[in-house]
């Protein structure tokens, strides 16, 4: 076991975070928690971008991470607005109660 932290460690950590995020979206039923899980997925992607960028000596990955942060922020604004609108209607953010549309 080497005590040097290589890029693999970052990639594995990012993959684990991404998997936790996917599991969170699929398993949890609170819209806010699902949304947090999606943010976790986006941030694990950022970690991947930055780790690869550092390893390969390319600046593009770090630039990409900045862009992703901006996009994630834009998504937060719209997403929270939608969740607040739903919450005002039902005083609950449980997605299982939103089953008016089905078939």
């Amino acid at each position, binding site marked *: 076991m080497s005590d040097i932290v290589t890029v693999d460690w970052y990639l594995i950590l990012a993959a684990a975070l991404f998997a936790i995020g996917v599991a969170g979206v699929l398993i949890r039923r609170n819209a806010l928690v*699902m949304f947090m899980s999606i943010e976790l997925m986006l941030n694990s*992607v950022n970690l991947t971008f930055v780790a690869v960028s550092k390893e390969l000596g390319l*600046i593009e990955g770090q630039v990409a991470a900045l862009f992703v942060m901006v996009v994630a922020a834009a998504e937060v604004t719209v997403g929270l607005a939608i969740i607040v*609108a*739903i919450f005002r209607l039902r005083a609950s953010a449980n997605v299982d109660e939103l089953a008016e*549309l089905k078939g």
Partner: protein
Amino acid sequence: MENAAFLPVAFEVVLLVGALVVLLVAVVADRDRRWWGPVAGLSFALAGAVGFLQWREVEETGGGLFFSSLDVPVFRSPMVVLDGYSAFAAMLLAVVGFVGLLAAWDLVVKVGKRGPEFVVLVLLAFAGLHMMTATPNLVVIFIGLETASIAFYVLAGFVRTSEASKEAALKYFLLGSLASALFLYGVALVFGATGSLSIYGANSIRNFFSTVIVAEPGILLAGMALMLVGLAFKVTAAPFHQWAPDVYQGAPTGAVGLMSAGIKVAAFAAIGRIFIGGFISQIDAWGPIVAVIAALSMIVGTFLALVQDDIKRLLAYSGVAHAGYILTALVAGVQGIGPMWFYLATYSLMVVGAFAVVSTVAGPDAGRAPLADFGGLAKANPELGWLMSSLVLGMAGIPFFAGFVGKVLSFTAAASVENPWPAGDNGYLWLVVLGTLTTVIGLAFYLRIISTMFTGQEPELQTEATLPIRFAVVISAVVTVVFGIVPWPLIDVVRDALPL
């Protein structure tokens, strides 16, 4: 070529300027006169003209890559590409946006003072959609995808008083964001595997494949699979389609047409650009997967559409089946690009026209639209009945309607390529046979719409279409019929709409 420095991004610039003008003027101007309609229409018309100029430029010079700084070695990757592919996408998206806005005009009138916001969101969304088709950079594709998707989440929830609209917005938002995140992780993994975010250019994915033999393709394949899943979500291909029926049903009817048509055009174009432009050397890896997704989409879409009682859900499931037919063309590689464009160009207008009719009958801000409400539509309003019938027949793929030509082109492309799995030189014959079978089964629900319109009771609902809606429906029906009978002009054009 002096003007070319501006021309490659002119489509986006025109739409963004239109959006900014509407936003700024809406602060001070009178909101009772609905002047934002002409502004948006003019923006789309100018954008269409830009698309035509781009097409001419490509014909003369062959197009090329733009906005890469060769002075700074680390920023070598180009950000914009001008080729037949992006120019055709510009023309198509301008037409879809224009006709879609006409079809949405009842909704714009109904939301009253919030009209400028609606128009701005549509303009921004279409700028993002074209960005997806006109860039070789995977991160810019993601940004375009999100620009369009975030605008569409808002459009889906635009009617504040409707519970269904809010539910649709939340479902679209959660699943759409999940799809975007999957796509983005795919981009990151491909970046890790190839060391590049760009499809073309000096330090590109294409160069990587032509110079390097990939020994351990695990990460690369995972990245490609994630990108495919993310985009398959957006084009509502099975098994990633579950959000579509709920969102289509809940979202305000007037907006559904341009939302679904726009995202389908751009996301399919992105699939073509990434997988056929960038990963064509890996077609043995992704071709069979795309074929399986196509097969599932055709089966799931067709059979679930059979049991729907709501016309918006029915059209959503029919859209799933159509996604399968378009993916059938893409398994053929470069030969599939032309059929894909033909199918997209005709199908997107059929969808916009069909939802325009639904929005007249069910109301532009309505959630539900039971099929029974269409009973006797053709008796009460023969013009609308016949136009809707021709659109539905076009979707069904009856000869002499454009959908038939699209399906023939798509199936021919799929049957003509070498098939890696199961190995054989007879092409994806199983996929073509399956596609033909589902087309025949699909006739059942398409003809059910028509028979309901021509036989049912006289409806008490609104059947008199407003002028913009009539324009939208007539344009889409004319396209469906004309390109069904005389498809050759469009076939000649899409033959040149190839990626660089």
